[in-house]
């Protein structure tokens, strides 16, 4: 890594695209609604269900309103990128594939300390869980590795391997940078801060101070109703879109501090019910097409 110039942020993404494309993944584009994690994209959540194989990789912008730090924290962002890979069924060499992808971006496992540290992954808002690891490089978690066991409250009949890379962290590691805003974005002088600092400042104000909670609450209720209605009509992905919107609205309400501890569980339960309904609708459609 010291011999050659480290990868800039966008080249890191391009290398990963190249790598996973060669491994047979469909390279997809980010999903067009606000998501809290790459897992929540229908390219992962819905595709993890049912008996059909699937292999895809994509970058997903993630929004975590409460993680906003007004651009002042060197490690925390309310908007960041995940690189997400879903391989279904789980390949025999899942771990080796991940390690090879590290080599592809310049991390040599004989110079760096790569570890698989247990992690029982769980996402209660979409009723999903799996077993796997946090993958550490020199003590830093650079990826999340999960064998999906359940999604939307439904057991996965064909388990998949999910690999999630925290792109900023990985880039900071590869570039040896200690402040995310100092990341070399394009190799031509543009920094991550040039692109995102202003947005982090403005969104932090929005998330914590300005967002109209009454409006958010109304939108949440609307999205919930719409999602249920659409799931009943059997249109899975539109129903799931509304579930995702409700989930993001809940995160915003949470950041604004208007949800008490006891209410929290009930909101999460409501979103989970939407996810479950959308997943069931998706599965029903899948079974129809596979029999039809």
């Amino acid at each position, binding site marked *: 890594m010291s011999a050659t110039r480290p990868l800039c942020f966008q080249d890191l993404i391009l290398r990963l695209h190249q790598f996973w494309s060669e491994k047979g993944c469909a390279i997809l584009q980010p999903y067009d609604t606000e998501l809290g994690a790459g897992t929540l994209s229908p390219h992962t959540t819905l595709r993890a269900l049912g008996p059909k194989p699937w292999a895809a990789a994509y970058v997903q912008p993630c929004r975590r309103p409460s993680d906003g730090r007004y651009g002042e924290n060197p490690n925390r962002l309310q908007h960041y990128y995940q690189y997400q890979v879903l391989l279904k069924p789980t390949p025999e060499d899942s771990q080796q594939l991940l390690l090879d992808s590290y080599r592809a971006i310049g991390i040599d496992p004989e110079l760096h*300390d790569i570890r698989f540290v247990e992690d029982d992954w769980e996402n209660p808002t979409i009723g999903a869980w799996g*077993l796997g690891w946090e993958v550490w490089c020199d003590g830093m978690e650079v990826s999340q590795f999960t064998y999906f066991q359940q999604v939307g409250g439904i057991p996965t009949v064909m388990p998949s391997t999910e690999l999630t890379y925290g792109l900023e962290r990985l880039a900071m590691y590869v570039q040896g940078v200690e402040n995310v805003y100092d990341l070399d974005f394009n190799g031509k002088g543009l920094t991550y801060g040039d692109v995102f600092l202003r947005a982090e400042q403005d969104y932090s104000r929005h998330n914590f101070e300005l967002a109209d909670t009454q409006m958010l609450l109304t939108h949440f209720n609307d999205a919930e109703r719409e999602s249920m209605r659409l799931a009943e009509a059997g249109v899975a992905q539109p129903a799931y879109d509304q579930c995702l919107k409700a989930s993001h609205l809940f995160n915003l309400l949470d950041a604004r501090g208007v949800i008490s501890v006891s209410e929290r569980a009930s909101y999460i339960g409501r979103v989970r019910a939407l996810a479950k309904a959308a997943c069931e609708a998706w599965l029903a459609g899948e079974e129809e097409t596979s029999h039809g």
Partner: protein
Amino acid sequence: MAELFIELFSEEIPSGMQARAADDLGSLLTKALDGLNPRDLRMFFGARRIAAILTVDAEIPARSMSERGPREGAPEKALAGFTRKHGVTPDELTLENGFWVLNKSLDPVSAESCVAEAVPELLWKFPWPKSMRWGAGSNFTWVRPLRRIACLLDGHVVPFALAREGDDAHGLKASNLSEGHRFLAPGPFEILSGQQWQEELETRSVIVDMDSRRDMVRTGVARLADQHGITVVQDDGLVDEVCGLVEYPVPLLGKIDAAFMDLPAEVMQVSMRINQRYFALRNPDGKAAPYFAFVGNLPFKDGGKLTTAGNERVLRARFADARHFWDLDRKTKLADRVPALAAVTFHAKLGTQAERAERISKLAGTVAQAMGLDGAQIAQAERAGLLAKADLTTGMVGEFPELQGIMGGYYAAHDGEDEAVSRAVAEHYLPRGQSDETAKAPVSVAVALADRLDLLAGFFAIGELPSGSGDPYALRRAALGIIRTIRDNGLRLDLTELFAQAANGRMGGELAKLPDFIAERLRVQLRSEGERHDVLAATLAGGLDGDLVRLLARTSALSEMIQTEDGRNLLAAAKRAANILRIEDKKDGPHTGAPDPALYTQDEERALATGLDQAVPAIETALKEERFTDAMQAIAALRPTLDRFFEAVTVNAPEPEVRANRLKLLSRFRETTALIADFGQIEG
């Protein structure tokens, strides 16, 4: 006789599950191969494998079996069932003593077929606490994907496959292949024997013996520390965890940036341990040293330079986060955080943490008063009680819940609270566990007790008691904390009164059971210290003495007394008296009331009566003045008088009034012993 070798090679097994899994494998094999007389079992476990090496017989020898079937003349159906079960025809049965009997000689079974049958069964049912499915549809589960099974008898593969009808079990079958270090020696190698497997693994950079890995970590880290004149903070749990993460432990030392050395040592240590699995180090003066130790998974090509730099960078980011909370938290005074506790629910039926803080504060004052502290200390206890839970709203405790109390102490000190107050805030969670120390500073003690008294009174009032192994609110631990704190500090308190104060007007629920709950914990504690629980039961017979110090002094005096010869005989006499009374009372009892001196017919009766008349006031005074040994001596001194009484006097005299009078005398003796304890509870 043969060597059986089994290795289950998988993707990384959670560190905390490995030892247990190895144990389970060992005991399941021993059980399943019982007929082969398994012995010399050795278990191995690590990040990617669990393995067993054992000795078994070459075969289960030929043997005969005999099983009794239905009675002669039993319905046709019963006989058919019996023959079907054993796969025989009726003419193979013989009639013995009116029953159909199957006599069968069993052929010898080779170790190979025994193992081939038992192991797949055992693997399908392996008791992982949490296991998973993978691949394209098999229902065979394992903790993480199982990649290889090696199974050899004296170096020969025991042929079996995991596949069952309709399920290929990922095509897993027994082989003679294993793998070395993931990065340094990828790919399979052939196993010839258990010994060769261990050696080959070592050349392939895997130290498969857990004790050897532990040793490498301990001595390696100690050596690095020694080079800098510093010492490691002992942490056996961390050593074990790390040894479950690496196949070839390579301890390394990193530096902590000077800019972070002003963080509280506990913050640095928790962040390093919980987030990073790093070892903390101390300077000779006991203060945090500017180094951390970590354990890599291989001897790095560059001696670990790059990975050390990487780990140092990660730690800087962690500490920057900790510094953020440390700086931010100190901007708000701990006292100003108390109102925010109103938003933190303690328990739905017991209100918020703010209400709890109020209660603890008041109770801490009451306890301080009962402890005889002065006015200033009572005020400090009340203040500390109020602040005790306020750090729950700080960012640092949100991030590291295990720092609760400790952070409150730091923040209180920063706010300029009295030293005794900030210390009490920090120490009121003591003891945190069995091996932890109890609080010693008086104000800390008052708050520590108040915290637990409120906890117990609250949950008993709403009827949330521990049951069996379930104790979600750690009430047993709280009770033990009270007992230990009182004993360690020799506190003369009336727990009964303090529980009444803690109940604070709340009635009902299971509050009445609280003294018994404390008594039970005390019993468990004394038993674990090797004390005789029957002696404690004897002194507890009249209900819990709320003054535990007094109770225990009395118990230990009694314990000593019954070990003397006089004591043993007195005990025998007391039991004899109790037996006689039990039998005679059943006939025409009870025989109570003062005996009539006019009815004594023998000197031995008069002597006992006089002895008791003298002993009772002496015992009562001694008990009142807490001279328990004197009380015991006063009663033990009755021994010769009693011996003579039982030798010379027939209690059941033919004259009814003499008999009744003698029973009254014995009854008076029993009442006298009851002043001390219920001797009937004492064994022996």
